């Protein structure tokens, strides 16, 4: 127990990260358990936002400025860490692409079945009277 408490010594400082991972957990649960396809897409974006917030927080260093070199000052102690910024950029682009694909799948499913509720889709797919099952 004492060991576990020792693990937690940074909780007062890391409240932003805590918010980020709560967002991540909410998004993940929406993606898995929401019964509406559009809400699943929203959950996907919430989840990604949580990851990006966490990553951006990891790059910040107190009292330093953006890593754009001004006036030839190149010492590290004036700038924050540039790596997480680059990773977030990549992550955002990936997130946009994936969202576009999910939305187009959603549109196609709506055009075919005229509903976005997973339950109704499942009823239509699993037509018991025809005995048609996987």
């Amino acid at each position, binding site marked *: 127990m004492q060991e576990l408490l020792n693990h937690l010594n940074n909780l007062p400082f890391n409240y932003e990260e805590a918010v980020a991972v709560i967002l991540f957990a909410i998004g993940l649960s929406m993606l*898995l358990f929401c019964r509406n396809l559009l809400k699943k897409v929203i959950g996907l974006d919430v989840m990604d936002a949580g990851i990006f917030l966490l990553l951006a927080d990891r790059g910040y260093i107190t009292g330093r400025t953006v890593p754009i070199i001004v006036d030839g000052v190149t010492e590290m102690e004036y700038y924050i860490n540039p790596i997480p910024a680059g990773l977030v950029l990549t992550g955002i682009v990936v997130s946009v692409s*994936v969202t576009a694909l999910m939305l187009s799948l959603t549109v196609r499913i709506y055009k075919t079945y005229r509903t976005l509720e997973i339950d109704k889709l499942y009823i239509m797919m699993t037509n018991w009277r025809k005995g048609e099952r996987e």
Partner: protein
Amino acid sequence: MSFVQNFPFFTIILSLICAVVSFVLSKNASKWVSVALLSISSVLNLAVLVYCSQNNTDFTYMMGHFPAPWGNELAAGVFESLMALLFAFVMLMSILGGASHVEHDVAKQRRHLYWVMVDLTHAALMALCYTNDIFTGYVFIEVCTIASCALLAVRGGGRVLIASVRYMIFALVGSGLFLMGVVFTYSITGHLLFPQLREAIALLWRDGSYRLSMTVAIGLMSVGLAIKAGLFPFHFWLPSAHGRATTATSGILSGVIVKGYLFLLIKIIYRVVGVEVFHASGVQNVLLIFGVAAMVFCSAAAVGSRRLKTMVAYSSAAQIGYMFMGLGMGTEAALIAVFFQIISHALTKPMLFLASSSLMDSCGGHQDFRSLRGAGHRNKPAGFLFTVGALSMVGIPMFIGFIPKLHFASAAFGMGWRTWAVLGALVISTLLNVLYFLYTAMLLWLPVNDDNRPSFNGKSAWRHAAPGLALAVLGMAIGLQSAPLAQLLQQGIALFCR
């Protein structure tokens, strides 16, 4: 530096360029671009494999002007090039065997995009094989996910769309968890490249600092990749996705893409985390338990399935369980068994999908087991292929499926409770395999009188089955004489686990 060392990079960049070029080509030209690309890539990967195994070496390839902790890197050794060769070859055979179905299933104006997606999938798989950087791994996982989802959804129709949405949702959950694991790993080590990560993780684990976040990070990465590979409790997307896609896509999805994620996981376990830390973190046992559960439950589900392709797809899920069980055992002998299993499954499963599509055609598009009765007489090549695949899946000696089972069983001894779990699961899974695969193979060859359905025994059927026959011959060769491959894998493991 030898010129061969450029080849891993060439395979990746060549397939990216081919994808861009195919985007504006006509549908036939882009198909031949894909075929040429996959053949060239097989040859290049074979050259890398020969180079690595003859010189008994592995090498890193600097992507740009900056060395390891600063720039991106590729790494190639015996395992990497062997996997890349396997992926390229199996993809080539799948698209050659499924090309006529693609022409039937995919609308004319989208057909060139199908081949663009094949090129992109190949690029992503090569990058997953050769990457030495965890974030590059993430980016190409996403390329692979999107491209394979498009390969699946291109067929159209309501059920295929629902299957692809399911596939996409589980894939996204997996990549979200994986990215979270990468972020945690980065924030406690400060590195993204494999060798530096490994040093930092070993140091941190010895110190005992950040142990909780390290365990969670390892767990997140493993679970994320396991979801994407379709391990047991998350396998729901797999039968519908693999069973409903067009034939070439089924072969690619089940034969190759699942293994791409699995190979990245193996690389992370052995080259990033280190097998001692992985064992101590407790994630290993989780993989073992779920692998064993997958072997039993997915085989049982295959027995209960009502369609041929669904059955074959459930059998994939069970075979994936074998691979994760081997990772959970954690010894070098088990790792060799895992690689045998990957090779055996990659050679057998596309063949089974090709054969089942041809059998379906000879039954007028039906794939329930009553219609399939006697289908082997109407399409002898496909029936022959299916029988070979079934015997291999059951694990009859002389067929390739026997080799990994033998290795798993011999690797399992002396591991306490795990021995019994592994051996029990092997026995149960093999018995269930006998029930569904041998039974179906017998069903195909039952005599049928009064059959007025057309038969497909002409030359075109043999030509159609040629790619599958190539896979079957290769599988038989390995099944008859597995010693050279075992030697190669031993050599690879000595390089890989250094």
